[in-house]
């Protein structure tokens, strides 16, 4: 009986040590930056976008996903926490799991105003269309000129539109270097369409007919139609720019 007790004590101690080692090792490996929560398709942590712009871009991204099952997300962050943007970008993409699981069809437009850095992070599955060279061209031509003038709204809007066009979606108006007023005409019907689509979806949602193209298996948690990543991964595709 005494022996049994001793054996049991030793076993418990071993379990304790194992758990401790596991916890320490786990923390050592997971030296990751802190990421903002994925609150929607446009995560504006840095606060550089106005509400209408945010909604407009969210609408495009939503329509695009419905048309193609692919996820594109726009993120602005307050800080890269000392990481190079290439390093931060792919970790963020994996953390959020943007894109369809297994096919990795996601992309992120990441803007870090503090570090004056921008990156288009491309998932494995989209690297064929949104190549490094194309991403670089979008950054140089559509995004950086506006950013250099401090106009984040225009740079992000034009950049997102160009990314979606490169991915074969023509729903976003080509607003390259156009005067701010010039794009309004084209946007009215688009806003109207988005409104109709959103309205229709909300109606369906009430009746339990909401059909979400990605993230199957999250049904219960996502019944309110909140956006979440599909579990895609990233391997460093895309391009970066600085201004």
């Amino acid at each position, binding site marked *: 009986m005494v022996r049994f007790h001793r054996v049991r004590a030793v076993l418990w101690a071993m379990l304790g040590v194992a758990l401790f*080692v596991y916890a320490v*090792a786990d923390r050592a*490996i997971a030296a990751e930056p802190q990421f903002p929560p994925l609150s929607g398709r446009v995560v504006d942590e840095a606060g550089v976008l106005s509400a209408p712009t945010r909604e407009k871009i969210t609408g495009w991204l939503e329509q695009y996903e419905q048309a193609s099952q692919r996820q594109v997300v726009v993120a602005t962050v307050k800080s890269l926490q000392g990481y190079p943007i*290439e390093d931060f970008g*792919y970790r963020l993409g994996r953390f959020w799991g943007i894109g369809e699981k297994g096919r990795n069809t996601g992309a992120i437009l990441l803007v870090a105003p503090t570090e004056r850095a921008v990156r288009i992070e491309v998932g494995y599955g989209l690297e064929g269309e949104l*190549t*490094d*060279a194309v*991403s*670089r061209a979008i950054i*140089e031509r559509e995004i950086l000129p506006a950013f250099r003038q401090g106009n984040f709204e225009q740079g992000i809007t034009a950049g997102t539109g160009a990314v979606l066009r490169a991915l074969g979606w023509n729903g976003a108006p080509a607003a390259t270097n156009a005067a701010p007023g010039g794009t309004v005409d084209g946007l009215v019907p688009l806003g109207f369409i988005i409104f109709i689509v959103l309205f229709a979806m909300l109606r369906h949602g009430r009746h339990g007919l909401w059909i979400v193209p990605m993230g199957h298996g999250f049904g219960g948690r996502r019944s309110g139609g909140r956006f979440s990543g599909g579990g895609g991964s990233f*391997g*460093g*595709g*895309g*391009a970066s720019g*600085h201004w």
Partner: protein
Amino acid sequence: MIRALFRHSRHIFLLSFVAVGLSACGVNNVPQYDEKTKAAWSEVLNQYQRRTDLVPNLVETVAGYARQEQQTLTAVVEARAKATQMQLPPDILTNPAAFKQFQENQTALSGALARLLVVTEQYPDLKSNQNFLSLQSQLEGTENRIAIARRDYIGTVQTYNTELRTIPGRWIAAVLYPDAKVKETFTISEQAQEVPKVKF
């Protein structure tokens, strides 16, 4: 008859209990982690191969504008040849000498490419050439992919080696997987490998 069946079912129950218990305590960990390191390694090779494939085009484009940089160009071509000529032995991951050789060859190519890109800074015509810009962004992207593939590989090997060297994985491996060996991982820092970014 009924009693025999009962005794039999008890054995089955016991056996399934043992099986579940064993898999829960990680009897399959070693082969599972092994497969993960292999997958991560093939991604590393894949990305290095991608860079190797970019080099001839890049060299040709640069040579069109900067013939006088023959020395730098030759260094890149030679480093590439050395990296591609090396026959990778099947046991490279558990063969320290071969792994070191592989790493050194790839690092030499990284260095030669970095020097080539620095040299191109002096040629405005080249820097505005669309083909060169495209190749340059592909090279940058590939270097980035290599860095990530290496990091992922290091992570999987860390898990695998830890399993092999710690109890109970060590005991399980000694009994069930006597062939399993600790694997090699990258030692030269990524910084040493990084191609300097070219600003416009």
